[in-house]
C-alpha cells in the first residue's frame, strides 16, 4: 500500500472506532482533511448519523473532493431519509455540479428547512455551467434565474432571500462572462426590486452591493 492509502485506512478506522460525539467529530475532520476520494463513502455515511457537528465536517470534506463526491451522492440520493438528503443537498449546492441543478432548484424553492433552502439558493449562483453544452447551459441558466427571482421576493425567511440575492449575483456574473448580457437583464430588475421593496435592511443592502458589483463589471467589460 502507498503512504496515502495507509493514511486513508487509518483515518477510516478512526471514524469507525469513534465512541462519542466529540471523537466522531474529530475523526471526521481528520478524514475530511486528506481530501481523498477513498473517503467519499464514509463521509456520505456520516451524513446519515445524528451528529450535526460531524455532518458539517463531512459536508465540507465532500465539497472539497468535488465532482467525484457529487457523482456518488447523485447516484444514491433518492434512497435517503430527510435528514441525510438535506445534508447531501448542501454538498451538491456547495460543489455546483451541473448534474444536480434540477434537484438544487427544487430545493431552493420548496424545501421545508430554511438552512437547506439557504444553501441551495446560494448554490444556484455557483453552478459549473461551463460543463454543459451551450444549449443546455442557456436553458439551465434561465430556469435558475426564474427560481432565484421568485425565491428572492417570496421566501418568508430573510436569510433565504439574502442567499437568493447572492445566487443571482453569481448567476449574472456567469451570464456576463458568457457574453449573454441580455439573459442577465431581468436580474438587474430583480435586485432593484429588493432594494426598493424588501422589508429587511440587510437584504436591501446585499442587493445594492450586488448591483454595484455588476455595474463595475459592466464598466470593465465595456471599456477594456
Amino acid at each position, binding site marked *: 500500500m502507498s503512504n496515502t492509502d495507509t493514511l486513508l485506512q487509518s483515518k477510516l478506522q478512526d471514524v469507525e472506532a469513534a465512541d462519542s460525539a466529540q471523537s466522531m467529530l474529530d475523526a471526521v475532520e481528520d478524514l475530511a482533511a486528506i481530501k481523498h476520494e477513498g473517503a467519499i463513502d464514509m463521509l456520505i455515511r456520516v451524513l446519515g448519523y445524528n451528529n450535526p457537528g460531524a455532518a458539517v465536517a463531512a459536508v465540507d470534506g465532500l465539497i472539497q473532493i468535488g465532482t467525484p463526491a457529487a457523482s456518488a451522492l447523485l447516484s444514491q440520493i433518492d434512497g435517503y431519509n430527510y435528514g441525510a438528503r438535506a445534508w447531501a443537498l448542501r454538498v451538491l449546492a456547495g460543489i455546483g455540479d451541473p448534474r444536480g441543478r434540477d434537484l438544487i432548484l427544487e430545493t431552493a424553492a420548496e424545501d421545508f428547512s*430554511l*438552512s437547506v433552502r*439557504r*444553501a441551495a*439558493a*446560494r448554490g444556484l449562483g455557483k453552478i459549473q455551467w461551463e460543463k454543459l453544452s451551450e444549449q443546455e447551459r442557456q436553458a439551465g441558466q434561465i430556469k435558475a434565474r426564474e427560481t432565484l427571482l421568485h425565491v428572492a421576493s417570496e421566501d*418568508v425567511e*430573510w*436569510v433565504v432571500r*439574502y*442567499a437568493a440575492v*447572492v445566487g443571482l449575483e453569481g448567476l449574472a456574473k456567469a451570464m456576463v462572462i458568457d457574453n449573454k448580457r441580455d439573459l442577465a437583464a431581468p436580474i438587474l430588475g430583480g435586485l432593484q426590486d429588493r*432594494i426598493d421593496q424588501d422589508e*429587511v*435592511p*440587510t437584504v*436591501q*443592502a*446585499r442587493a*445594492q*452591493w450586488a448591483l*454595484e458589483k455588476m455595474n463595475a463589471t459592466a464598466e470593465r467589460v465595456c471599456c477594456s
Partner: protein
Amino acid sequence: MQENTTNEREGAPQLTVSQAIANLKQTEDQGDRYYAAWWIGRFQVRDPEAVNALLVALKDEQNRDTDGGFPLRRNAARALGKVGDEAVIPALLDCLDCSDYYVREAAAQSLQALHAKAAAGPLTKLLAGGVAAAVPVPGKPHLTQPYNAILEALGELGDETNNDELTSIIQPFLQHEVPQVKNGAARAMYQLTGKGQYADILIETLSCDDLQLRRSALLDLGEVGYLPAAEAVANTLAENSIKLISLKGLLEKHLADKVGAKTTQNSTALVSGETHTVETRKVMSLMDSLL
C-alpha cells in the same frame, strides 16, 4: 399566511383571534387560558379586548404551580411586551414586585421591548445590595433576581439623564461569577458608554467552551451591533444560522447609524446613491461565506 405556516409547523392548535380572547377570558380551563395568553403574544394581537384580558391575567390568583409560582401571569407578562401597547407599562412595573422570579423576569424583558423609560428606576431597585446580594436561591435554579434580564433592559433604557447613575450601579456586576450575569453587565455597559472594552468581554466569550454561552454572546453582539466583532463572530464554533443573525445585527446597526447621521427621514438601508463602505462589504462577505 405567514402566521398560519408558523403555527402549523409548531404543531400548535389553530385558534382565531376571537377564540383566543374568549379562551383567555374564561377561567374553567386553565390549560386553554395559559395557551391563549401565549398565542396572543406570539401573533401580536393588537386588540383592546385582548390587552385587557392579558391585564386581568396578570393579576390571576388561580393558576399556581407547586412552587407557588404564577404560570399564567408569566405568559401574560411576556405577551404584553410583544403586543406593544405602551398603556400597559404601569401594570408591568407592578409585576417587578411579584414573588415569582419568572414573572419579574418576563416583566423586565417586556419593559425593555416597550422601551419603557419609566422602568429604569424600578429596575435599578431590583439591583439593591449589588453583587453581594446576587446569590443563588437555595433549592432553585436561579439567583435572587433575574439579573440578566434586568441588566439587559437597563442597557437599553439609559439616556443623558441617568447614564452615569446606571453605569455606576452596573459596573460591579462585571465581576459576577455567573457568566450570564457578567455578560449581561458587559452588554449594558457597552450600550451605555459606547466603549469597546465592554463589547470585547462578549468577544472573549465567543471562544469559551460552553456552546450556550457562545450562542448568547453571538446574539448579544448582534443586538448591540458591535461592528469590530464581525470576524470573531464568523469564526465562532456555532451554527451558521446564529452567526448570520449576529452579523445581520452588526450590519443593520451600522447602516442605521449612518442613515441617522445623514437624515432622520430616510428609513432605507442606504441613503440613495451612496455606495457600500469597506466595513459593510466586509460584513456581507463574511455573511456570504456562511450561507
